């Protein structure tokens, strides 16, 4: 409990990292729910990797003098722009080919994942910025976060959650029954595009803070755990968000107590929760069958 008290001490050096973790924990699963219900889990693996490649690419342009010198905070903005352009661009290209119904979707997503992963490492290793924490960040080691970064991330996440709530019925309709949406005169391309933009921006923000593998974990694992018990879409979203938030806090606590990297600890904790939840679900269904 002492470690928990320290974590929430206003003087705690890594307090902003705690808040960022909590934000990611609560918000990523809300977006991840759409990846799970639309059976786009592979997309959840590939997009964070593509996003990190976007960050690496933006910093490479900067390092090679193709973008003028920027202040530190502007550099973060540059990284976010790189991540968002790459993520949303890839989403749109994948969605376009999906709509054409040609070739194998898994093959395209797998190719995007492999290429993005390879190029992220190549670009970062040949870039002096890679030595200034960026490589660690993209490996999931949550490090110190500036106040302005925290504020902007919180603001953007707030806006994204507001959008997700306001347009929930449109997003659910185009996800569940695209044909019905067209019959009702809805602009399916617009609503799909807006949903993909929200997914892309959330992933970009998350990858910049905690790296691709931790982002993937927070996107997918909480909705999968919540799905074991939820009876409605509302329960699924709420439960996934609560599981993500509390796992982020628990993960930070464990990592701080035992001097472990935060991101991988968060995901290991989510994995343990998934295993326990799955066991409880199986046991309860066996019990109800025998009763």
């Amino acid at each position, binding site marked *: 409990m002492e470690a928990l008290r320290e974590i929430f001490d206003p003087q705690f050096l890594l307090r902003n990292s705690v808040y960022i973790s909590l934000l990611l924990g609560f918000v990523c699963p809300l977006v991840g729910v759409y990846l799970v*219900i639309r059976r786009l889990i592979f997309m959840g693996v590939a997009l964070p990797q593509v996003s990190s490649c976007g960050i690496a690419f933006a910093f490479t342009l900067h390092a090679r003098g193709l973008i003028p010198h920027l202040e530190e905070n502007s550099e973060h903005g540059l990284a976010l722009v790189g991540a968002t352009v790459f993520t949303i661009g890839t989403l749109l290209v994948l969605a376009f080919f999906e709509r054409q119904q040609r070739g194998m979707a898994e093959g395209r997503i797998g190719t995007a994942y492999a290429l993005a992963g390879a190029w992220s490492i190549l670009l970062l290793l040949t870039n002096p910025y890679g030595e200034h924490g960026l490589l660690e960040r993209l490996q999931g080691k949550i490090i110190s976060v500036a106040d302005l970064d925290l504020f902007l991330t919180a603001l953007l996440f707030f806006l994204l959650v507001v959008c997700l709530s306001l347009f929930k019925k*449109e997003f659910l309709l185009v996800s569940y029954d695209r044909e019905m949406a067209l*019959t009702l005169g*809805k602009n399916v391309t617009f609503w799909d595009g807006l949903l993909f933009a929200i997914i892309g921006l959330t992933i970009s923000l998350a990858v910049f803070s905690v790296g691709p593998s931790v982002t993937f974990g927070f996107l997918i694992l909480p909705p999968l755990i919540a*799905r074991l018990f939820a*009876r*409605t879409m509302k329960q*699924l979203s709420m439960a996934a968000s609560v599981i993500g938030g509390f796992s982020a806090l628990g993960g930070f606590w464990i990592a701080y107590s035992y001097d472990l990297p935060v991101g991988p600890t968060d995901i290991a904790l989510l994995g343990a929760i998934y295993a326990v939840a799955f066991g409880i679900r199986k046991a309860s269904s066996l019990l109800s069958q025998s009763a």
Partner: protein
Amino acid sequence: MKPLITLENLTVGYGRKAVLEGVKAKILEGDAIGLLGANGSGKTTLLKSIAGILPPSEGKIRFEGTKRPVIGYVPQRESLDQSFLLSNLEVVEMGLCGRVPPGRFLGRAERTAAMQALERTGAADLAHKRFAEISGGQKQRVLIARALAADPDLLLLDEPTAGVDAPAVKAITELLQLWNTPGMTIVMVNHDLPVVRAVARTVWWVREGTVEQGTAAEMLSRERIEHLPVE
């Protein structure tokens, strides 16, 4: 009966491949049309085109009134993902999304309209059950309720009696007969000839990329049925 929709030289298909070419037809207000044809002949393609799901590559669909009629669409139920955690009431409420502007939540009025639609199809007791957990016939009633919720001028149904048991077929047939009024035109794809005979006044045979039309009595005459090519 005056025309509700006119299909003018309609060519429609997937990608560059045209399934139907140069279709000319009128859907009259209050009519009940049975769309028949072999598997893969283009019945569903034509229905989707009328619904606005599949835009024509050539020709056009002209709405004769001052505005586009409200369309209720009942898809083949296998096309819907069963993994969504939706109650039947929520599925029916989706049919009302066209009425409620973006950014506004579905309210009490929409919930009442959805319940009424479920009552019209005799599925009110299923409102709070999960859509994925009910039988095929019950699903069909819920999907018809969803299409009815928006109070459509035109009800399009894609094989509404496929894979459902005999009592459900009878119930759906009776409901369609009951609802087919001057205010509600029905177009239905169906392989089940007794259902088409019971509901349709007009039949469109979809064959070799074109549509042959006539009254149900003409098109379903014994002679004509006997001379149909075997699939």
